[in-house]
């Protein structure tokens, strides 16, 4: 029994106890057990991470027991601990522990708290199995396990049709990714004869340039395998094309959004690409695809984020966009930078979500930012926490002095894109800078709409409810307000409607403060180990394909490149300031002038509508066609029904045949036996 056993299996145990104990156990015990397990996990994870940080710590694998053994397919349950895992361990356990704590306050009024905490712990277990996987199949176990937990938590409020639809959508879209992941595993096993990750990575370079038959084509082996696996990563990390589930996943309770749909699960794809980076390094084509999809997603999601009105959806698109950054960092070979952005992003994005949750809590479940305003004075602690998160995500900092978390990680990605000799590098650089401008714009837009200006609460039905009655709607609305679907901003009533927002309880504020600390300091404290050429090579110690040349080159980019991200950030801030503080009629005038563009962005480039027409409707239509025209209209008509009709024309005879089948059958059997007996006797 080592620390890693406890870290991984305590959450499982806690989930089982809390889940099955459920009502017998009571809310308090369930919360205590699950949260306790996670805090123990966190306390055990940081020393592991710090040991790797200090250097000299060897990677190790702790076997648990055999899983699947079939010929060469030897899969064991085992826990791999190396620098990459250590990074993920602290991210997962820390964010999870504080999200558990946060949920004490946030879910206090909910009826099924043990179930909620059991799901959260189950999720954490699956995520830990994913990051400690030593083989592809265990990674897939964790991969699907987090998918299950995500499904259960998105649909946690299962009375709401929208939550159920979002849950199924998340599971199914992820399964589309897993289709690629599965084929990738099958192909990897076929090519390498093993699914052990270290063995595959070792054998990969020798396979570079080989070719393989796939669906009648002859393709480059490593490119095929990497792209198939990357499709899995695209699904889990909500990359362009398979991203549609993430915004809808906001139907889940806000702590879930923070833990699963911002800090941990959605970064699993980035983790996978980094874990398999020596494999991806053998195929330039695959890396170009990774970089391209990443850059496209960063841009796409940022544009959509600028137009959303639901506070959680803005942050969701922001997450999608930041994941795009991580992917193109990986695509240009800067895996260290990708992992560093994953690390810092976990803190500041979880913080932003939890902060948004605190705002929603204060605003009585209203999520539409058009009904916020002027909240700075009413919930000051939440405001300052959100401020730290915003400074971190927009990358505020001074070169060589100090910066918030995102300053180090995002700038590193932008510089790496510029310095890289990847064919995608140049494009990725410009996309990244432009997306940074948009990031700054939508982040500050969120801040200004929520915390500045005068209150616009009176228009909100939630606030009216709260002001006039004590009938608490127990569940979040998640933008189901019909007004959400109006194209174009509407005039909202100003005023407070007599409502007084209240600051959240301590269990909510403590996680905010701790994560704010992470958002402020994570970049400054750890950028050396993750990014600097010598220090980084020492820290990563081969657990990712760390490119020291690229890291050197990154520091030698021209000054204008280094300043471009900051310039973009300032430009975005200025635009947001002008549009939402100084000249408040700008947004309305913009939407009037560019009606088409605005509708396009507000409706998220019409991906959902497109997929609905392309996949959902045809599936049902074809299913019905196969059933009615295929099974009933053809197979049955010319099969059993036809036989009955031919053998016995006339309904009486048919019925008699139908009821006399048993005798016919017995007769045939007897005839057969008679024949067999004849054979047996006549030697």
């Amino acid at each position, binding site marked *: 029994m080592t620390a890693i056993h406890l870290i991984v299996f305590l959450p499982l145990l806690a989930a089982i106890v809390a889940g099955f104990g459920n009502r017998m156990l009571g809310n308090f015990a369930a919360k205590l057990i699950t949260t306790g397990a996670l805090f123990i996990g966190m306390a055990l994870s940081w020393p592991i991470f710090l040991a790797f940080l200090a250097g000299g710590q060897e990677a190790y694998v702790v076997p648990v027991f*055999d*899983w*699947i*053994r*079939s010929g060469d*397919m030897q899969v064991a349950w085992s826990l791999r601990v190396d620098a990459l895992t250590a990074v993920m361990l602290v991210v997962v356990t820390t964010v999870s522990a504080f999200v558990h704590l946060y949920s004490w306050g946030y879910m206090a009024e909910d009826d099924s708290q043990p179930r909620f905490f059991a799901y959260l712990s189950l999720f954490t277990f699956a995520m830990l199995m994913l990051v400690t996987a030593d083989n592809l199949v265990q990674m897939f*176990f964790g991969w*699907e*396990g987090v998918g299950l937990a995500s499904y259960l938590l998105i649909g946690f409020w*299962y009375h709401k*049709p929208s939550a*159920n639809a979002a*849950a*199924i959508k998340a*599971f199914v879209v992820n*399964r589309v990714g*897993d*289709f690629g992941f*599965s*084929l990738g*595993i*099958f*192909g990897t*096993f*076929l*090519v390498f004869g093993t699914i052990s990750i270290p063995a595959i990575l070792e054998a990969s370079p020798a*396979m570079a340039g*080989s*070719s*393989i*038959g796939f*669906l*009648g084509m002859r393709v480059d*082996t490593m490119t095929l395998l990497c792209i198939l696996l990357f499709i899995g990563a695209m699904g889990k990390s909500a990359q362009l094309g398979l991203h549609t589930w993430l915004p809808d996943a906001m139907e889940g309770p806000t702590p879930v959004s923070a833990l699963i749909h911002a800090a941990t699960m959605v970064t699993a794809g980035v983790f996978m690409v980094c874990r398999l980076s020596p494999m991806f390094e053998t195929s330039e084509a695959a890396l170009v695809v990774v970089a391209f999809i990443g850059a496209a997603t960063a841009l796409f999601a940022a544009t959509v984020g600028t137009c959303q009105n639901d506070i959680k959806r803005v942050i969701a698109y922001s997450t999608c966009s930041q994941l795009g950054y991580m992917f193109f960092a990986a695509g240009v070979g800067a895996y260290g930078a990708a992992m560093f952005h994953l690390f810092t992003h976990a803190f500041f994005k979880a913080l932003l979500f939890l902060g948004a949750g605190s705002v929603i809590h204060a605003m009585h479940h209203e999520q539409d930012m058009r009904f916020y305003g002027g909240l700075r004075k009413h919930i000051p602690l939440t405001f300052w926490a959100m401020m730290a998160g915003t400074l971190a995500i927009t990358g505020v900092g001074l070169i060589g002095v100090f910066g918030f978390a995102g300053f180090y990680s995002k700038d590193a990605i932008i510089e790496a894109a510029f310095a890289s000799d990847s064919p995608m590098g140049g494009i990725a650089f410009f996309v990244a800078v432009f997306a940074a401008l948009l990031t700054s714009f939508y982040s500050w837009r969120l801040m200004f709409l929520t915390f500045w200006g005068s209150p616009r609460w009176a228009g909100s039905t939630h606030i009216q409810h709260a002001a006039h009655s004590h009938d608490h709607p127990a569940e979040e609305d998640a933008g189901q307000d019909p007004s959400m679907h109006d194209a174009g901003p509407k005039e909202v009533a100003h005023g407070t409607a007599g409502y007084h927002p209240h600051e959240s309880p301590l269990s909510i504020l403590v996680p905010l403060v701790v994560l704010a600390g992470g958002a402020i300091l994570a970049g400054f404290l750890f950028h050396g180990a993750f990014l600097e050429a010598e220090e980084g090579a020492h820290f990563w110690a081969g657990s990712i394909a760390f490119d020291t040349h690229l890291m050197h080159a990154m520091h030698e980019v021209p000054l204008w490149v280094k300043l471009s991200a900051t310039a973009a950030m300032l430009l975005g801030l200025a635009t947001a300031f002008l549009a939402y503080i100084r000249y408040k009629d700008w947004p309305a005038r913009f939407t009037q002038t560019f009606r088409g563009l605005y509708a396009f962005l507000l409706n998220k480039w019409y991906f959902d509508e497109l997929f609905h027409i392309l996949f959902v409707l045809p*599936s*049902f239509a*074809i*299913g*019905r066609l*196969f*059933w009615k025209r295929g*099974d009933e209209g053809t197979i*049955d008509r010319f*099969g*059993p029904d036809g036989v*009955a009709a031919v053998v016995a024309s006339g309904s009486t005879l048919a019925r008699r*045949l139908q*009821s006399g*089948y*048993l005798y*016919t*059958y*017995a007769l045939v*059997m007897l005839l*057969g*036996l008679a024949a*067999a*007996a004849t*054979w*047996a006797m006549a030697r």
Partner: protein
Amino acid sequence: MNALGFPILSIMLAVPLLGAMICLFAPGSEKRRAWRSRWVALASTLATFWLGVLLWARYEIGGPQWQFVEREPIFGRFEWAMGIDGIALMLIMLTVFLMPICIAASWKAIKDRVPEYMAAFLFMETLMIGVFTAQDLFLFYIFFEAGLIPMYLIIGIWGGKERIYASYKFFLYTLLGSVLMLIAMLWMAQEAGTTDIPTLMAYDFPPEAQIWLWLAFFASFAVKMPMWPVHTWLPDAHVQAPTAGSVILAGVLLKMGGYGFIRFSLPMFPEASAQLVWIIFGLSMVAVVYTSLVALVQQDMKKLIAYSSVAHMAFVTVGLFAFNRQGIEGAMIVMLSHGLVSGALFLCVGVIYDRLHTRDIDRYGGLSDNMPKYALLFMLFTMASVGLPGTSGFVGEFLALVGAYEANSWVAAVCTTGIILGAVYMLYLYWRIAFGTLDKPDAAGMKDISLREVLTLGPIAAVVMWMGVYPESFIAPIRDDVGVLLARIERANPPGDAALVMGAPPAAAESHAEPAH
């Protein structure tokens, strides 16, 4: 004789048969006979299960291929020949495990002609165990064909409104197959001069004859499996059958097709199997996509699960005919897993059918509120059906598809879409049953599952998890037998389409492209 010193296989056949006789012939008032036959049925199935556990415990992994062999001449060349290998052992375990559960599930649901019903089930158990233990061709034929008669009766007597049509359809499909199979068997006995199955498994039939024999057996097994397009009897049979009938149908009877492929088609006709593999692959690929989409649009719970069975069975056929270890072992695990999971899903349907007497999905909704325990178990089996890692469903599907990929990437790619489609129709079903608001008064009035129902579903849930987390218990007994089968079919193994070609150094490739240099 064997390690136990008594003919355990024959006793396993005899115990349910004896139980059936007691149910049928013991006198008494109607009420008393019903009460007694329930307990007799439960006792004899539990006794058989216990014998099965003993069998598994004493089965020597790595020992001789055929164990617990019994041979008694009957007359002429006929022999009472019994014996099992690991493959048969696992399927026998599946049978004896599901049987007591079926009896418990029928405890209250069946009210008419209880002694006859229980006798039919017990008689069927004897015949099913017989199928997996028979070592003589004609003995196998008797068990294989006669095993369906109790099933016809169960559907035809205790079934729903359309029971006559359903059992007629079932009969018509199986009839054609069994006639062809019988003719093939007679020819084989004549050609090889023996009806001993182990001997036949090593006999080399001429390749031209193999094709015809293979097709004749295929006609029978494809219907049992069932493969597309001879699957249309299954939805009707399931819909009309009582709950326990569906469990046995999905749990054991469908496995006879797969068992037939492993025992007959592959080892006896390896060349034909390799040559005709395109039929299997083609039909399986169609089945996965076609039946999954059909399952999606069903309004009847049982029909939905029946269609999903056809899709799952397609994983078995592609795995078996992948000609490699992962494929065949995977196919075996899919068979075991599907037997448990679809059996459990039918039981889940039965639980709410017993309360509301409708299979119409739209009549339910929001059951998580008033039936949380039920919702949890139903979720577990839904996830196992979807193939979530950690449940039995994943292990089998994964291995079968790995095997399929080695054989042909098209097959793997098309069949892997099943993991997407499976998630769609199962989660859509679960949503409509268990999630949403509890706004239908009759559904809201239903009580959560009783202790009896927990005792039927709980053991299956435990085995599903066991097989998902530590499948080695179930793979170890079949490993050597799959090895024997692989050695037998190796010579006919068709090459895969991957044909990996190692990369030439770039310089060499360039000079090849421009020979002028």
